[in-house]
C-alpha cells in the first residue's frame, strides 16, 4: 500500500511537472509563417530591419514620385500644362487625366479624393518607419553606430512623410498668426501599439514634431549609410538638414532657415553644378545632377530594366510622349540667354485646334527624361532658401548675392538692386526649381493667389489667397471611421 501511495504521488508529481514544463515552454507556441514573415520575425535582427528599411525606401520613392504628388505643385501653380491624347478616338484632345482631374480644378471631393492613395501611402510609410524605430534599439547584432544610423534614416523618413502630408492637407503656416489651425495626425507609434483613433494636431505642433524628429535624426547620423547603394539615394545628415531648412522656410523661422541652409552650403561638401555642365548634367541618363542631395532610385525589374520613372509623366521619345509639359507661362519667364531655357525640349504634337488636328509645339522638360528619379533636394534650393531667409532677416545684400550665384550659373543677367527682391527670389525659385514640386507651395506660403494662363483647361484657372480649396480633403473613408478626425473646412 505504501508503494502504491508513493507511486501515486510520483505520478501526480510527474504529471504536474509535465504540465508545468509545457506551459512554461513557450517556444512550442511560437509559430511563424513561411514566405511571408511576421513583423516580430523580420525585425528581430539587423538583416531583417534592413530588409524592412529597403522596402520602406521603395514605398517612399513610390509615394512621392507617383504622378499625383510629383506634378501637383507645378500643375496647380501654373508651370505645367497637358499634352494632347496621342491616339484613339480622342486623338489630339487635351484632358487633365484621371488621377488629378478634380484636384486640377480645385474641386477635389472627399468621397473620391484624387489623393486618397497618397494619404494612406504616407501613413503606411510612417507606420513602417515606426516599426523600424521600435525594433531597432533591441537589435543584438548591430553596433550602436549602426543602430543610430538606421534610427536616423527612419526618423527622417517619418518627418519627411509628415511634412509632405502637411503640404497637401494643411493651410500654410502663416494662415493663422500662431499656426493654431489644423495640422495633420502625427504618428509616433506603430500599429503594434494597437488600433487608435487619432485626431489632427495643430499645424504648430505638427511642425514642432517634424523639427524634433529631424534634429534627433541629424544628431544620430553617422557617415556610413545603413545600406549599400548610391549616397544620393538615401537619407543622410546633409539632406536631412536640407529638409530641415525647407521646414524652417515654410515655418518662416528665418534665422534657423538661414543657419540650416548655410550649414548645408558650407559643410555638406556639395558644390553647385558648373554652368558648362548644367545642361549635360540634367540630360545624363540614369544619374542625378551632381548637386542632388537626395534623389530616389527608380524601380527596376528582374532584368534590371527601369519599370517606372519620372519620364512616365514628363518624358518624350520619338514614338511616345507623356502627359505633362511646361506652360508658356513658365517658358516665357526665362531670358533668352538663360541656360535653363535650354532645358526645354520642343516637340510638335497633333492637337485638335477648333476641331482640326494641327501640329502645335510643346515644351517638355529635359530634367526628367531617360529614367529620371524624383529629385527631393538639390543644393540650388539651399541657396534660394538662404537668400529668402537673409532678406527676411533684413540682409538684402546677402540675399541678392545668393540669387546672383544661381543666376550667374544660369548665364542670366545679374540683379543689380534689391528693390523688388522678394519677388525676384520667388521668380528665381520658379525658374530654377520648376517641375521639382515647389511653385504652388511657394505661392501659398507667400499668401499669393495663383494665375494659370497658357494651356489651362480648368474651371478655376485663377484663385486668390486665401482659399479653402488650397488644401485637399482628408479622404472621407478616414472621416467615416474616426470621429476624432476633423475634415478640412469646405469639404
Amino acid at each position, binding site marked *: 500500500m505504501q508503494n502504491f501511495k508513493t507511486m501515486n504521488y510520483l505520478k501526480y508529481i510527474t504529471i504536474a511537472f509535465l504540465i508545468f514544463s509545457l506551459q512554461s515552454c513557450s517556444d512550442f507556441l511560437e509559430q511563424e509563417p513561411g514566405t511571408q514573415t511576421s513583423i516580430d520575425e523580420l525585425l528581430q535582427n539587423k538583416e531583417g530591419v534592413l530588409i524592412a528599411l529597403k522596402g520602406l525606401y521603395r514605398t517612399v520613392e513610390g509615394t512621392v514620385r507617383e504622378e499625383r504628388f510629383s506634378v501637383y505643385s507645378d500643375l496647380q501653380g501654373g508651370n505645367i500644362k497637358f499634352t494632347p491624347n496621342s491616339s484613339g478616338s480622342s486623338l489630339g484632345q487635351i484632358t487633365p487625366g484621371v488621377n488629378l482631374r478634380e484636384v486640377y480644378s480645385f474641386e477635389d471631393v472627399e468621397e473620391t479624393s484624387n489623393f486618397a492613395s497618397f494619404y494612406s501611402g504616407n501613413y503606411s510609410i510612417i507606420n513602417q518607419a515606426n516599426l523600424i524605430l521600435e525594433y531597432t534599439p533591441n537589435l543584438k547584432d548591430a553596433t550602436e553606430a549602426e543602430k543610430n544610423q538606421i534610427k536616423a534614416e527612419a526618423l527622417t523618413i517619418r518627418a519627411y512623410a509628415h511634412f509632405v502630408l502637411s503640404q497637401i492637407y494643411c493651410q500654410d503656416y502663416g494662415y493663422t498668426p500662431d499656426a493654431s489651425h489644423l495640422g495633420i495626425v502625427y504618428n509616433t507609434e506603430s500599429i503594434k501599439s494597437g488600433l*487608435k483613433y487619432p485626431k489632427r494636431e495643430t499645424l504648430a505642433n505638427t511642425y514642432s514634431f517634424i523639427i524634433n524628429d529631424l534634429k534627433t535624426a541629424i544628431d544620430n547620423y553617422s557617415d556610413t549609410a545603413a545600406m549599400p547603394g548610391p549616397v544620393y539615394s538615401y537619407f543622410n545628415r546633409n539632406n536631412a538638414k536640407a529638409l530641415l531648412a525647407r521646414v524652417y522656410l515654410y515655418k518662416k523661422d528665418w534665422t534657423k532657415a538661414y543657419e540650416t541652409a548655410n550649414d548645408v552650403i558650407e559643410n555638406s561638401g556639395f558644390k553647385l553644378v558648373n554652368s558648362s555642365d548644367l545642361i549635360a548634367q540634367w540630360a545624363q541618363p540614369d544619374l542625378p545632377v551632381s548637386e542632388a542631395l537626395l534623389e530616389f532610385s527608380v524601380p527596376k525589374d528582374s532584368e534590371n530594366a527601369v519599370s517606372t520613372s519620372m519620364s512616365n509623366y514628363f518624358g518624350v521619345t520619338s514614338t511616345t510622349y507623356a502627359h505633362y509639359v511646361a506652360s508658356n507661362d513658365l517658358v516665357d519667364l526665362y531670358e533668352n540667354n538663360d541656360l535653363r531655357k535650354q532645358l526645354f525640349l520642343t516637340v510638335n504634337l497633333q492637337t485638335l485646334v477648333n476641331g482640326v488636328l494641327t501640329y502645335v509645339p510643346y515644351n517638355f522638360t529635359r530634367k526628367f527624361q531617360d529614367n529620371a528619379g524624383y529629385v527631393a533636394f538639390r543644393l540650388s534650393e539651399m541657396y534660394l532658401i538662404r537668400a529668402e531667409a537673409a532678406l527676411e532677416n533684413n540682409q538684402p545684400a546677402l540675399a541678392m548675392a545668393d540669387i546672383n550665384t544661381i543666376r550667374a550659373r544660369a548665364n542670366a543677367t545679374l540683379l543689380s538692386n534689391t528693390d523688388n527682391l522678394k519677388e525676384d527670389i520667388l521668380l528665381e525659385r520658379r525658374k530654377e526649381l520648376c517641375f521639382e514640386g515647389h511653385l504652388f507651395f511657394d505661392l501659398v506660403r507667400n499668401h499669393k493667389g495663383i494665375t494659370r494662363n497658357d494651356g489651362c483647361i480648368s474651371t478655376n484657372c485663377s484663385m486668390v489667397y486665401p482659399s479653402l480649396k488650397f488644401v485637399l480633403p482628408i479622404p472621407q473613408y478616414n472621416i467615416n471611421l*474616426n470621429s476624432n478626425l476633423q475634415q478640412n473646412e469646405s469639404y
Partner: protein
Amino acid sequence: MTFTIHDLRKILFFLALLLSSFKGFSQNKNITLQLKNKPISLIIKAIEEQTEFRIIYNARKIDAEQLADINVQNVTLETALTQLFAGKNISFYIQKKQVLLTNAAPAPTTATSSDEKERFISGTVYTAKDKQPLPGATIRIKGTGMGAITDFNGKFVYQLKGNDINNLVLEVGFLGMEPQLQKADDKKQFVFYLKEATDELNPVVITSSYGTTKLKEEIVGSISTLYAKDIAVEQASESIDKMITGQIAGVMVENTSGVGGPVKINIRGQGTLPSLSGAKTGTSSQPLIIIDGVIMGEEYGIDSAYFSGNGDFTENFGNPLMKIAPENIESISVLKDAAAVGIYGADGANGVILITTKKGKKGKTQFGFSNQLGISSAINQIKYLSGEQYNELRNEFVKNTTPSAALTPYNGINTDWFGLLNQSGIFNKYNFNVSGSTSKISYRTNISYTKIDEPQMGNNTKQLNAGINLGYNSDKLNISLVLNPSYIEKTAPNIFYSFAYLPTLSPYNPDGSYSLLGVSGMMRGNPLAAIEQNKNQAKTYGILGSLSLSYQLSNAIKFSTLFGMDYSDKDQDRYFSAENESGQFPGTFVLDNTTYRRWGRRLLNQRNATKWNWQGQALFNKQLTENHAIDGVVGFEISEDKTNFDYQSGIGFVNPNVINPVSNALIDDNPLTTDVDESKNNQTIGSEISYNSRVSLFSQLNYNYKKRYYLLANFRRDQSSVFGDDTDVANNGGLGASWIISNEDFLNNNSWINFLKIKTSYGTTGNSRIGSYRSKGLYNYIQNNYNGGTGATPGSAPNGKLSWEKNTKFNAGIDFNIFNRVEFSVEYYRDDKSDLITTRNIPTETGYSSMLLNAASMYNQGFEFQTRIKWITNNNFKWTTSFNISTVDSKVTDLKGLGSEFSTAELALAQKIGYSTTTVWGIKWVGVDPATGRDLVTKNGQVYDLNTYKSLFTIADWEPIGDTQAKAYGGFNNSFTFYNNLVLSVRGDFQLGGDFFASDAIIDKYSNTSNRNLSVNAANHWRNPGDIVPYPAVTLVPVTANLSKYVYDATYVRLSNVNLSYNVPIKNIFLDTLSVFADATNVLYWYKEKSPKGMNGIREFSYTYPQARTISLGVNAKF
C-alpha cells in the same frame, strides 16, 4: 550478526511476498469466461479447460443441452458455477478435483412448508463485469412494484410476504444494467450479477475523447449518437458524412454533388460569419472531428494562389473523412451543448464529432466479407438551349446590340454536351474484415476498397482504406493501437461542368478528330478532348492512428494517455494539353532561338499535413456515500498542426501535347543580363507553410445524488499560437444539470413512463481554428527592391488582441421514453457567438486600411426534436421509425467598426445587424415590362425600370431577398423487419424554408452567349410588346446577379436511401451468416417549388455538377 530493524523489515517483506505467492500457488486457477446462449455441456468443457477440475454428471438427469450464459472474470470455480446454474435447478458439490452435478436442490437450510406466509431474505447485487457490489440497485417483487434498494455494499434485506412465496420472482434492476429475475423458490440468500445493458435504449455513450463515458440516460449534455447498425454503409458514397445526412438532430450535412469534396457539416446553424469576398481562408465553420482520440485535420485554404481554394491554380480540397472506411465505424457521437463540448474549450464552438472505430469482439476469430456493385446515373440535370434555340437567341442578341452586324444562319448542329459528358457510372466496393479476441488480446482488421466511376465522364475515385485495431487488456493495464491507413486517388479531368458549351459546335471535326471550340482558359477547351488529353489526378496517402495506454490505479482512479496523429500527403497533378484549348495559352517563348507558342501547362500542388495530439489524463470515479457519487477527468493535451505546401507550375513546352515535367518549361537566357538566369522564367516553384500549436488543460466533474440529480462542470484552458500575443490564453467552461424524474419514488410505479429526464446547460466555448497567422502582422518580401535586393513591406495588419471566437451556449431539454416503445427528446438551444472575426476597415493613419478584428456578434437558436418509435415489435414483423427535425434562427446582433458591408452581387451577402449572415441581399424583381421587355424592380413600394433603379440606388439600398439557411431541417428512417430475415430501410432528409440563389450566368445573362450556352429558360424571353415572360429582351441588360428572380425556395424532401436486405437462412456450410441486399442511393427529390414545364427550376439549378443516383446489389457474409 545482528538484525537491524531495517533488515527485519526486508525479511518480513520477503516472507510476506513468499506467503502471498504460496497462497496463489495453493489456490486453484481462477476462471474467466464469457459465453452467451451456449449449451451447458459446452460451458462445462470450457471451465474444465481453465481448471484442473473434472465435472461429472448424469446426462439423463441433467439437461446439459439447455442454453445458459456465463460471464465471469477471474473468479473461483464456486462462483462461476453458482452463476452458471443460477435458476437452473442444478446443484453442485465440489470434492477434491471433482465436481458433481445433481438435479436436486441443495439441502434446504430450513424446512419448507407449504403454509409459509413470510420469509426474511437477504442478498447482494454485484456487477457482472468486475464483481463490485452495486449500491442503489432496486429489488422488486415482480408484479407488485414493492421491493428494496441495495445499500452501499450492494446488500439488501426484505421481508417476502404472500401465500406462494416460492413462486415469487425477484426482479433486480439498475440503470444501465440488464434486469435480472430469480425465482424465490425456497432460497433465503440471493446473489445477483448484473450485466451492463446492451439495451439499445440506454447504451454506454462516449462523452469525450478523454475516456469519459456515461450511460445514455445519465448524460447531462446534448449528445446524439449513431451506432453502426443505424448507419447505412451500403449507400453509394465515399465517406460517412454523406451517409448520415439528416439522421442526427441539429446536424446539417450540406448536400454536395460529386465525389470527395470537402466536408460541410453545420451543427446548430452557421458556425461563423461567411466571407464577403468568397475567400476560403478564414475561420473554420466546421465541427472538431475526433477519431478514436485523434484530432482530425481539415484541409483549409491559405493566402496563396495555389492553395486558397479559389481560382484555376488552386488545389482542390478533399474530404478528410475519406480516411476512414464507413464500415469500420462503430459509433458517431455529436456533442452539441456547453455541457458536452465545454471540455473542448476553444475548439468546441462548432460542436464536436466523436467517431470510434470497431474493435475486436470477444470470441473466436470472425471473418467478414462484403461486396457491392452498382450503377449510377446523373439526375436533375440542367436543360440547356438546343442548337436552334441558341442560334435564334444569339442572333437576337447580335441584332439588338450591334445593329450593323450580319446574322448567323443556324448551322444545323445540335450538340447535347450534357449527354456526351454524362454516362452510366459504376460503383464498386469490397470490404474484408477479421476480428477476434482472446482473454487479453483483441484484434480487428478491416480493408475496404471503393471505386466510384462517376456518371461524369472521365471522373473516378479509387479509395483504399484499412483499419487495424489491436488491444491488450489485463486487469489494470490496457494498451490500444489503432491505425487507419488510407489511399485515395481521385481522377477528375472533366472539370468543365460549370461551362455551358455552345450547342452549335460539334465536338468532332469531319475527320473524327476533336474540334477546337474557340474558347480559351484552363477551365475551357473541348471537354471530350480534355478528358482524354489532360490530366487531373489527386493522390492522398493518409495514416490516422493512435497509441493509448491506460492504467487502473484503483477502483477510483485510472490514468490514461494517448498519442494520436493524423498524417496526410496529397499531390494534385494537372496537365493541360495543348491538343485542346485548355492548354493553349497566349504568348510565345524562345528556346534555342526557335520561337514556340506558350502552350501546355503542368501544375503540381502538394499538401503535406501532420496533426498530432498528446493527451494525458486521470479519470476518477467514486461513490462517496450511499447517495453521493462523483466522477470526472483532469488532464492535459498538447497538439500541433504542421502543414507544408509546395507548388510547381510550368507553362510553355516544346512538345506541349504530351505530359511534360515542370523542368521542361525552359526558355533562352537573355545574353544581355549576365547576372540573371531567365531560363526558368516560365516555371514557378514555391512553398508555403501553416503551423500552429496549442497547449491545453481540461477537466470535467460529474456529481450525482441518488442517481436522480446530476451536475456537471467543465473547465478548459487553451493557449494557442494562433491567438494574438496579448491574448493567447482562453479559459472556457460549462455547467450542466439534469434531473431523472423517473427515478423518483413518485414515478417508480408508473407503468407507462419508462424514463423522464429534464436537463439544462450553460457555458462558453471558442473557435480557435482561425488560420495559423492571422493575428500576426505580416511583411511581404519583394525582390528587386530599392537599389536591388530583397525588401519587405507590410502586408496584413497585426492585431495582438485578436483572439478566438467565443460561443456561449445554452441548452435545455426533456428526454421521455414511454410504453417501452416511444422515445423522444426535445431541446431548445441558443448559441450566442461573439468576437466573430471579420475584416474591418480601420483608419489609414495606422498604415493599414483594414484589420482582422473580433468585431461581430450573432446568435443561432432553435429547437431540436427527435423521436424513435417502435410501432410494431412482433417477432414476424417489426417496424421502427426515427425522425428528427431542427429549427434554426440566426441573426447578427452587433458589428463593431465599419467595413465593406456588402459582397459582390454574385455572392449577394452582407453583414447587417438584425439579419442572418445567410440572408441573400439584392433587388426585388417584379417582372418584365410587357411593353419594353426590360426588368422591373421595386423599392419602397415604387416600381422602377432596372436601369432607372440603378441610376437612383446603390449597393447600400439592397434588401433581403431570401435566406439560404433552412428554417427547419431533419430526416427520417423507417426500418421494416419481416420474419427477422428481410429488412427494408427507407431513409431521407428534408429542408423546410431556405432559399437557393442561382447564378444568372446560365439563366439570362445574354452577353454570355458569345461563347456559352444558356439554360433553356432563356428561350422564354421577351420578344414582342405584350409578352408576359420572366426573362427580359435579349440585349445588354444591366448585369444584376442578385435580382430576386434568381432566388428559389429550396424546400425539399429527399428519399436518400432505400435498402432491402435479406438474411439467407444457411445451415451446415462454413458461413455463419449471409445476407444479400439491394440499395438505392439518392433516390428521389420532391421540391415545393416546381420547375416550369420544360424548363429548369430549383430541382435543376441546385447542382451545377450533376448529382448521381446509384442502384446497387451486394452481398455480406460472416464466417
